[in-house]
C-alpha cells in the first residue's frame, strides 16, 4: 500500500509492510524480512529505512535501520536488528504476518565500489556492506570484524557471493584473524583503489586514519540518533569540514576526508 504521493525527485515511499520472517541470529540479534515492494525496487546499498513503531506504542520515535538485503523481483527487504533498547526489543518480538510501517529508502547510499575495493564491516556494520558486496560482480574483499566470534552474526553461508573474498577478524581471536579491523585493513590495503566502511566509531576513526595515510579513497557510513529521518529536524548532524551535515539526508555515507569523527 502506497501512502505517499508520488512526486518528481522524491525517491522514497511510505509502505505498510507485512513481516515475512523474523529469525534469531544468536542471543541479542535478529533478522527481519519484510514485503516492501516499493522500497525494494528503489533502495541502493548504504541507504536505510525508518521503521515506525506498532500502533499500540504511539509515543516512540521511528527507528532507522540499514537495508541488509533487497530483492526487487520479489519485493522483499531484510534488516538486521541488535536488541539493545525498547524499540529494537519491540521489533524483535514482531511475528510473521504482523505489519510495520516503513519509510524509505532514505539517505544517500554508497557510491559504486571500483574493482578490488575493500569493504570493512565492524559488527552490525555488516548490514549495509553485505548489500554493497552483493551489488557488484567483480572482485572485492569484505573484512568482517567484531570483538568476539558471537558478534559475527552473519554465517559463512550468507556470503555465498561469486568473486567475493571474505576475511574475518575478532579482537580475541575466537574466529578468523586475531586483531582489530584496523590491523586487518593495514595488512591488505596496499592494492585497494577504495575502502568502504561501517561500524563502531573507534573503528571508523582507525579506518579513516589508515586510508588518509595511504592515500586511499574511503567512504564511511555513520550512525546517529534520529528523529524525522528525512532531513527536517537537523537532530542527527555530524561535524564535517563543510560544517554540520545531516546523517539522515546528506549521509549516512560520507567521504572519510570530510567527516570529523572525534569532534
Amino acid at each position, binding site marked *: 500500500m502506497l501512502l505517499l504521493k508520488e512526486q518528481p525527485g522524491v525517491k522514497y515511499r511510505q509502505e505498510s509492510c507485512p513481516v515475512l520472517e523474523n529469525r534469531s541470529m544468536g542471543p541479542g540479534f535478529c533478522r527481519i524480512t519484510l514485503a516492501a515492494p516499493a522500497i525494494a525496487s528503489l533502495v541502493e546499498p548504504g541507504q536505510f529505512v525508518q521503521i515506525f513503531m506498532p500502533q499500540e506504542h504511539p509515543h516512540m520515535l521511528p527507528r532507522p535501520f540499514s537495508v541488509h538485503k533487497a530483492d526487487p523481483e520479489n519485493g522483499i527487504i531484510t534488516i538486521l536488528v541488535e536488541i539493545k533498547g525498547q524499540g529494537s526489543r519491540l521489533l524483535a518480538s514482531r511475528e510473521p504476518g504482523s505489519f510495520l510501517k516503513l519509510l524509505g529508502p532514505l539517505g544517500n547510499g554508497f557510491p559504486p565500489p571500483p574493482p578490488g575495493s575493500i569493504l570493512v564491516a565492524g559488527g552490525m556494520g555488516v548490514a549495509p556492506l553485505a548489500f554493497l558486496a552483493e551489488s557488484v560482480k567483480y572482485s572485492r574483499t569484505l573484512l568482517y570484524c567484531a570483538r568476539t566470534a558471537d558478534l559475527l552474526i552473519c554465517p559463512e553461508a550468507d556470503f555465498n557471493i561469486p568473486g567475493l573474498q571474505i576475511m574475518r577478524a575478532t579482537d580475541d581471536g575466537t574466529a578468523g584473524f586475531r586483531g582489530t579491523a584496523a590491523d586487518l585493513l593495514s595488512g591488505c590495503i596496499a592494492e585497494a583503489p577504495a575502502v568502504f566502511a561501517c561500524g563502531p566509531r573507534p573503528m571508523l576513526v582507525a579506518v579513516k586514519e589508515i586510508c588518509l595515510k595511504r592515500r586511499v579513497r574511503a567512504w564511511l557510513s555513520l550512525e546517529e540518533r*534520529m528523529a524525522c529521518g528525512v532531513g527536517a529536524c537537523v537532530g542527527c548532524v555530524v561535524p564535517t569540514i563543510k560544517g554540520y551535515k545531516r546523517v539522515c539526508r546528506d549521509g549516512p555515507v560520507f567521504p572519510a576526508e570530510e567527516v570529523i569523527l572525534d569532534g
Partner: protein
Amino acid sequence: MDEKTANQRQEKIIAPDLSVDLGGIILKNPVLAASGPFGYGREYGELTNFKDLAGIIVKGVSLEPWSGNPPPRITETPAGMLNAVGLQNPGLESFIKDDLPYLRTLDLRIIVNVVGCSIDEYAKVACRLSGEAGIDGLELNISCPNIKAGGMAFGTDPAATHLVVEAVRRETKLPLLVKLTPNVADIGIIARAAEEAGADGISLINTLSGMLIDTVKKRPLLGNAFGGLSGPAIMPVALRMVWQAAEAVRIPILGMGGITTADDALQFIMAGARAVAVGTGFFYNPELAKVLKTGLEQYLKKEGLAGLKQLEGIARF
C-alpha cells in the same frame, strides 16, 4: 433521494467550520506545525499531504547563520524526547532567498519564528521579514532553552519580555505571536507583559529544560548537556500553562506541547487555546494533521456544534 445522498446532504449542511482567527492570522483549521521539527517545510512537503494543515511555523530565523550545537543533539525519553539542536539556521538572507520562495508556493499560512541574541537583532529580523511577501505572521521566540544568549533569557523576565516585544512591535504590522517558555514560576506575568507590549497572540509552551547522563561515558548525553523536553510526557504541563495564560490575557493563545491525538488538541482548546501546534507528534506520525483535523470535525459533529468558538476555554467556566 436515497439514504446515502440524504446523509451526504445532511453532512454538507452541518459540516462544522474549523476556521479560527489567531490574532489576525486566519486559519482554515486550528492545526499548525510548530516551529523546529518541521524545518522550513521542504522535507515534510515530500512526505505528507499538506492539505490538512492550516499553516507552518517555520524554524527559527536569526540575523546571521547559526551553526547549532554539537552532537548528539537528540535522544528519546519516555513518551518524549530531548533536543538541543541550538537553533541551527541558515540566517535571514538565506532564508529569504532559498526557503521563502518554496514556502510561498504552498497553500498554507506561513508564520516565521524569529530568534536573536539582542533586542536589536530581533527587531532587525522582524523588520526585514515584514517587507517580504508571503509571510502571514511572526512568532517571536523568547523561549529556546538551547542557546546561551538571547532565547530564554528574554522569556523568563517580564521586563525583558516587554522590551523585546515592544521593539519588534514597532518594526512590524504583521500579526505577532510571542512564544513563551514553561521554565518560569508564573506564566501569567510573562504573558501579560507580552500582551501589554503589543503582541497579537501567545504561543506556548516551548520545551522544558532537562538533561540525561550517559553512565558508560559518565558525561551528559547531549552535546549541549541541557536540552528541551518535548512530546506527550509534557502535555499535562503544557495544558496547565495554557490554562493559566488564558486567564491572564485577552489575546488568543496557540497551545502546544505533546499533542498526538484530536482529544489532546480538544483539551488545549477547552483550556483556552484558539489553535494548536504539533511538533514531536509529527515524528511519530507524519500524517498527524489529518488525524487531528478529522477528529476535531467528528467531535463538533457529535456535539452538534457549528464551530470551535464555543469550546474555547469552556473547561474554565
